[in-house]
């Protein structure tokens, strides 16, 4: 059934990758305009889901930071049997500093120790009658770096500290360290579980919303197939729409998060009194913000891709 007298077709307007991309992009924009309500529902769902997830992330990041702050209290005190001569102190400090895991070393002389004790017992000086500085031992107060605050790392550190001659006793609040570390492990496990469930819920809600919105346009998908559109031609504008909706949803969720932060959370630290060291909760770091936008884009793309599979029969 070939036909010789068929009119000559005009040149293709969208030749080349760029031309095609321009067409798909403009088609996606037109689709968004023509399906305002459906698009708004998708963007709204994505932003709400991401807002919940990012609120969780904000609280988690702050709690983690706070807990890290508490771990600064993991401090090792090494007591000397006799106060070392002033010249030897620097050498001793250097030896301690050389042990892996040492963050900071402070020497507390017997005089200093007595001064501190007096300071603490202000108003009850009578208790200190007859006590001279040589009753209290001189010591080194050592802070550990973050990597060496775990139970076993602290024990190993203490063992090497004890090998230094002149150190009679080492104290480090063993029970506290253990409790603190098991709390941190529980906290991280809960965070991972909650975060995992939340991610699954967000994926489920968003992919189902996108599925419904694509279902609402299944006639369009069917018709495109019937007039000879290839699978890629049908999919591309929908995928671009998904990416745009995801990005818009993510940006809206971040704006809402910023609003919540300034309205309620910025001073929540003071209110709750959980971390007197900081003025309040801090906002998410930039890397997390980028990750949320990227997550939104990915949600939109994957949600559209999986939903389209069901409705394209070309």
């Amino acid at each position, binding site marked *: *059934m*070939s*036909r010789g*007298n*068929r*009119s000559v*077709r*005009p*040149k*293709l*307007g*969208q*030749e080349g990758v760029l031309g*095609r991309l321009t*067409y798909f992009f403009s*088609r996606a924009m*037109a689709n968004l305009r*023509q*399906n305002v309500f459906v698009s708004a529902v998708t963007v709204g769902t994505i932003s709400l889901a991401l807002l919940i997830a990012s609120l969780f992330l904000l609280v988690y990041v702050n709690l983690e930071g706070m807990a890290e702050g508490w771990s600064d209290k993991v401090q090792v005190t090494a007591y000397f049997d006799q106060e070392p001569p002033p010249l030897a102190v620097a050498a001793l400090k250097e030896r301690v500093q050389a042990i892996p895991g040492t963050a900071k070393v402070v020497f507390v002389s017997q005089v200093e120790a007595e001064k501190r004790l007096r300071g603490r017992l202000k108003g009850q000086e009578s208790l200190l009658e007859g006590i001279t500085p040589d009753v209290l031992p001189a010591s080194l107060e050592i802070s550990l770096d973050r990597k060496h605050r775990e139970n076993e790392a602290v024990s190993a550190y203490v063992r090497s500290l004890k090998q230094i001659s002149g150190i009679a006793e080492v104290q480090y609040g063993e029970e506290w360290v253990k409790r603190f570390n098991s709390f941190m492990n529980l906290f991280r496990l809960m965070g991972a579980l909650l975060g995992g469930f939340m991610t699954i819920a967000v994926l489920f809600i968003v992919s189902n919303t996108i599925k419904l919105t694509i279902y609402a346009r299944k*006639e*369009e998908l*069917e*018709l*495109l*197939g*019937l*007039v*000879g*559109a*290839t*699978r890629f*031609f049908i999919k591309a504008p929908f995928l671009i729409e998904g990416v745009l909706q995801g990005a818009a949803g993510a940006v809206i969720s971040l704006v809402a998060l910023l609003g919540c932060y300034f309205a309620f959370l910025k001073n929540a630290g003071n209110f709750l009194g959980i971390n007197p060291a900081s003025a309040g909760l801090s906002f998410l770091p930039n890397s997390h913000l980028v990750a949320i936008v990227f997550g939104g884009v990915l949600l939109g793309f994957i949600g559209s891709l999986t939903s389209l599979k069901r409705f394209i029969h*070309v």
Partner: protein
Amino acid sequence: MSYQAETTALTDINLKIPKGDFVFLTGQSGAGKSTLLKLLYAELSPTRGQVLIDGVNLTRVPRSQIPFLRRSIGVVFQDYKLLPNRTVLENVAITLEVLGWGKRDIGKKVFHILKQMGLEDKINSTPLRLSGGEQQRVALARALVNDPKILIADEPTGNLDEENKEQILALFKEANIRGTTVVVATHDRRVIENSHRRVIRLEKGRILEVPDVQG
């Protein structure tokens, strides 16, 4: 052609439609008219047997090649399948967009065909604002805008009054005169009687009579 093991929509169909022909496919509801048409534009594939269009065996063509085949076939669907949130212009333009035409050429060609259909003043209307006859003509414009080799129509006059029926039929004839092979499924006797074309009668999935090929 069977949908399920126990129901067979079409049996023993042996039919040849020559290039440039205009045939009516008739029969009662459920006779298999729509199924036969769907076989022609590859929406369905036969359980047994072959369908050849312009020498190409549709049953052997890879799935990925079907879209390219459909581009030479214009289809007017029973329910029109117009997209309600797109204008008349955009609805007709779809066929050319799929082919990768440029925006300006699409505009010209779509305006030209809509003028032929008497719809030039409805170009920016959405389908829901049009009458049944107008919607039917938009669907026909979409099917004909890329000058297809074959035009297939499923009950194109079903919901139309006499005046609109004649108008639509005249447009089919025009397309046929320009060289398009036309296959129309209808159970409207008056339409068939008035047009003096070849009629293929279907009953319970079988062809009852195929008159000799004329011209």
